[in-house]
């Protein structure tokens, strides 16, 4: 059977892909520009088909704690929100990371700080990749740049979350959530049975079967010696993820003299900028981090060897550029270009920035 191509919004793709990849539950709260995730799920009524639970919570705080509760039983669950709502979720995310629970958090970013704007932004990069809540922890952060990737990254995020018992995040800006593109939805994967969940997650608290010890899901440990060991264990896991799970895409880097580093909608703008620049004889390439954490430090360092300059294009005041600079061993010229507060730059601005900031 031919693959079915559907025209839809990025937010819709998240919802439909989640149903198809066997998600057990979704807990959310309305906020622009991500409300279509909950709206699509409510319209699809997956509780009548796959049995997936969908619940509109009383707050983002409640929603992330519902995710905590369900994830602790081994269920495959997720939540979505946009920047101010994701700030509210940070306490819960820290608990989830501390208790090592697999789940998916979707952030369709809007401009801040504060209530900010409902227009797109990438200003939650620091929050997402450096921790966000309290304590030393990391999220696996995937940055889709198309509606197709919104659909594809749902199951990827769940797979990584369960592989490492770690929360995963899909971090997309409002452009990716709101724009409509053609996409192919993933094939149906049945929800796991109770027996499969218990076999896959022997640690989960879903009813103590005779013969095993109680499963206790907690992030609390008052003995500092044990708590330090827990932290050492977490850090070892993070090093393992850094070793195995870096993902990025190189576009026209082979002959490039200038490199754009961009993710999400900025990568799409960067691709058009490459086209315009190359028409003018400027050889530009693009490195698109797909995982923002773990970050492709080595790839950027490697590519920098044959570049004359690097432009980090972001919808913020310059956040990912700190990681790009950390990656570099040389003092190759590295500059930020971007807009804030919900403004999206056009490709000509990016080409001008390369000329002004890197070529002069």
């Amino acid at each position, binding site marked *: 059977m031919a693959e079915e191509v559907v025209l839809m919004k990025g937010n819709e793709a998240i919802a439909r892909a989640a149903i198809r990849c066997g998600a057990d539950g979704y807990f959310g709260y309305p906020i622009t520009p991500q409300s279509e995730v909950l709206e699509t799920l409510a319209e699809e009524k997956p509780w009548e088909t796959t049995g997936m639970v969908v619940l509109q919570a*009383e707050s983002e705080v409640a929603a992330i704690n*519902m995710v905590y509760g369900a994830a602790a*039983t081994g269920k495959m669950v997720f939540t979505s929100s946009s920047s101010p709502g994701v700030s509210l979720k940070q306490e819960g995310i820290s608990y989830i990371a501390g208790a090592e629970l697999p789940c998916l958090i979707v952030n369709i970013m809007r401009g801040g700080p504060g209530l900010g704007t409902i227009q797109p932004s990438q200003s939650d990069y620091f929050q997402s990749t450096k921790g966000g809540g309290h304590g030393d922890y990391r999220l696996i952060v995937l940055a889709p740049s198309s509606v197709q990737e919104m659909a594809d990254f749902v199951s990827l995020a769940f797979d990584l979350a369960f592989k490492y018992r770690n929360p995963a995040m899909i971090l997309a800006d409002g452009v990716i959530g709101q724009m409509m593109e053609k996409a192919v939805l993933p094939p149906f994967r049945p929800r796991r049975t109770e027996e499969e969940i218990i076999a896959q997650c022997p640690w989960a*608290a879903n*009813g103590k079967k005779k013969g095993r010890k109680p499963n206790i*899901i907690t992030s609390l440990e008052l003995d500092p010696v044990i708590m330090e060991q827990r932290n050492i264990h977490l850090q070892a896991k993070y090093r393992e993820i850094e070793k195995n799970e870096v993902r990025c895409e190189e576009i026209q880097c082979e002959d490039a003299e200038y490199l754009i580093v961009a993710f999400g909608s900025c990568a799409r703008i960067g691709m058009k900028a490459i086209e315009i620049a190359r028409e003018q004889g400027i050889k530009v390439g693009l490195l698109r981090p797909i995982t923002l954490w773990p970050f492709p430090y080595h790839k950027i360092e490697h590519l920098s060897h044959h570049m004359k300059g690097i432009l980090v294009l972001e919808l913020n005041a310059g956040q990912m550029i700190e990681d790009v600079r950390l990656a570099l061993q040389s003092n190759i010229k590295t500059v930020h270009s971007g807009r804030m507060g919900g403004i999206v730059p056009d490709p000509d601005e990016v080409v001008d920035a390369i000329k002004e900031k890197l070529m002069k």
Partner: protein
Amino acid sequence: MTKENIIKPENLVYKKSTLLNDNAMHYCPGCSHGVVHKLVAEVIEEMGMEEKAIGISPVGCAVFMYNYLDIDWEEAAHGRAPAVASAIKRLWPDRLVFTYQGDGDLACIGTAETIHALNRGENIAIIFINNAIYGMTGGQMAPTTLVGMRTATCPYGRDVHLHGYPLKMTEIAATLEGTCYVTRQSVHTVAAIRKAKKAIRKAFENSMNGKGSSLVEIVSTCNSGWKMSPAAANKWMEENMFPYYPLGDLKDKE
């Protein structure tokens, strides 16, 4: 008669619930938590739900309840236990899902989660220990601290002009359409303990029978926080807590 002649199975009139393990409880002597833990363990065992029970412990003195009852547990963030329980019960409808929360957890920081879980009629049971004080953090003012009562953060007594009034969460819960059983009990006498056990059993059975949410408040003592002997704390509770928090069923849809 020797000890060996007395300790025989046929002479047993009482035994500890098999769900209660031998870990030494961290609670202060005289605290109500130990009694209520015992009741929860007995009810789960008597219902035959040992393999299906999932408890949600709070932030507060009962945070370590998971160390004493051998069932599966999740430790929730402060106040969030009803949200945690809601999700678990929806995804595992045949499990017995209950929360065990103190007054600061349930009636202050978790007010929204409490009201909304109860109002959705989640098939969960909430055990609410009201001792009018934050015990774990050293005796600060709680939402249920009585007017005039002295704590570490209202050392001159709770003043309504400064702090407002003690919150009657159980009365609020009784007004919500989603609740089927709302009751206020205590565990300061043997008779009260028996009644409290019946209430917990009813709440747990309601949750398994899909009747909606149940809330069992246990008016309790915190003799350390109140700076009283256990006996004096019980007397003080009867004279001061019960008039403001009267015992009995507030709602029973049966």
